[in-house]
């Protein structure tokens, strides 16, 4: 088992993809790289077959909604893992909520299938090339994407309600 360093992987990505690697940081020692959304598929495919890093396991795929950052409201994050080198890498791609499309990686990792469906279900991200992009946990007739920030749950600190009427 060799030990990959954050610097090595970042340098390798930059050498291979140049301007598609936008920014990088290492929160809690986990290399997090922002990549261009249209290159995410290509980068993940390349990482999977790259012998020097062997980052070939998809741990987690998900999205986050940042309503205030215009033009890059949805962050799609891919948490990848190299089981050989015990190295984790988080890739992020930002897409606008007005046109939330990104290439599906189901052709690279078959396990991304349900995770992409879940991301579609909750955030409305359109994964192009996905074989069956339908809702998975929510009901089919739902017409909104519940994990977006505009759908609030009740504020736990509100004081204008009389608890007696709510059985508390």
């Amino acid at each position: 088992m060799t030990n990959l360093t954050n610097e090595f992987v970042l340098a390798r990505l930059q050498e291979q993809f140049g301007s598609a690697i936008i920014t990088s940081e290492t929160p809690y020692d986990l290399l997090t790289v922002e990549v261009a959304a249209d290159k995410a598929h290509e980068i993940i495919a390349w990482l999977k077959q790259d012998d020097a890093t062997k980052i070939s396991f998809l741990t987690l795929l998900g999205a986050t909604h940042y309503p205030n950052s215009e033009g890059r409201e949805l962050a799609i994050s891919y948490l990848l893992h190299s089981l050989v080198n015990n190295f984790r890498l988080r890739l992020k791609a930002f897409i606008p909520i007005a046109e939330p499309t990104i290439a599906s990686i189901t052709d690279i990792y078959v396990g991304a299938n349900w995770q992409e469906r879940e991301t579609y279900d909750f955030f409305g991200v359109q994964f192009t090339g996905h074989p069956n992009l339908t809702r998975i946990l929510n009901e089919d007739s739902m017409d909104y994407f519940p994990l977006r920030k505009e759908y609030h749950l009740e504020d736990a600190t509100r004081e204008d309600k009389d608890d007696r009427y709510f059985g508390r």
Partner: protein
Amino acid sequence: MSDTYTKKPESLFSNETIDGEISTLNLGPTHPATHGIFQNVLTVDGEKILGSVQTIGYIHRAFEKLAERRPYNQITPITDRLNYCSSPINNMGWEMTVEKLIGVEIPKRAQYMRVIIMELSRIADHLVCNSVIGVDTGALTGFTYMFQQREAIYDIFEEVCGARLTTNIGRIGGFERDFSPRFHEKLEKFLKEFPKHFEEFDSLLLRNRIFMDRTIGAGPMSAERALDYGFTGPNLRATGVDYDVRVMNPYSSYQDFDFIVPVGTQGDTYDRFCVRQEEVRQSLSIIRQALDKMPEGSYFAENLPEFYLPRKEDVYTKMEALIYHFKIVMGETPIPAGEVYHSVEGGNGEVGYQLISDGGRTPYRLQFRRPSFIYYQAYPEMITGQTISDAVLTMSSMNVIAGELDA
């Protein structure tokens, strides 16, 4: 949920036939052999399965959304209800995630105590899975005996936290109280009596001709395919990949303990059974080691007054304790902004917590990595070409837990 009723699923299936008469069979949603509410619409030719379409989401409770409105210590009870067969692992995984975000190291003693509780719940989880595999092959006896032992484990949990199934055990920063003498009594009794019963259960099934004939070759999975699907935990190890979070990224002092990671070769139901059986023995050994090496010290992090609820005596007599108590209960504790991923080895595999904090009272975004959700999508591939009875066995041996699947 998918539109299984409206869509003709033929295109998804192979065209292989036995007698040419293809019929559709609903396995679930509420079928006793599915151990939870999942629907599988099977396309069968006689007894042979040609394909399956899954519907999940029947007990979806929007945990990720709920977590965005809850202070950090109120999220622990949510994690109980993910994999409810081993709630303490989820609870502690979450507590460790928050500790990682705050950047605090809890005392060695508390870490060892966590290891004991987590390994006990791993045993409980594997006992449910393996004894239910027995039930699905027609062997009910082992199940009844193993559930008595599971009961003993729940009694031990009750001594620690007062609850049995959805435990809400531990706190951010350690434990709510130290292990009591009664806890040690019950644990010693369990460690003394359990191996005998467990080996008897093992001998009922492991080399049982009928059991072997039923399980060997049922629901096989290759290592490459399993990795592609994102399998983790016993299901991945049954295919021959020795990935275990406890070994690869040790947390809570797992590096201090000596244990082996059992692996299988075929990735079929029998291998999954064997891997879980051996993991139970390893867990017992880890508990024994942790008890023997239990360091002196505190059972909670003393330097964490803003997150760890103070003792009740202090709350009633000291002003600082009362203030902290109030702030914690109301969720008014400052927390650093940041993005953190932490994972633990759950009963079914890598249970991960992807937490984004913006410094507010609640997480900005919390995503759970639920191993059941990720590997259950391989189920149609595993049962295609098998018989219906194999499909039932495959499902029970994958240990798909509805709470974890649907979040």
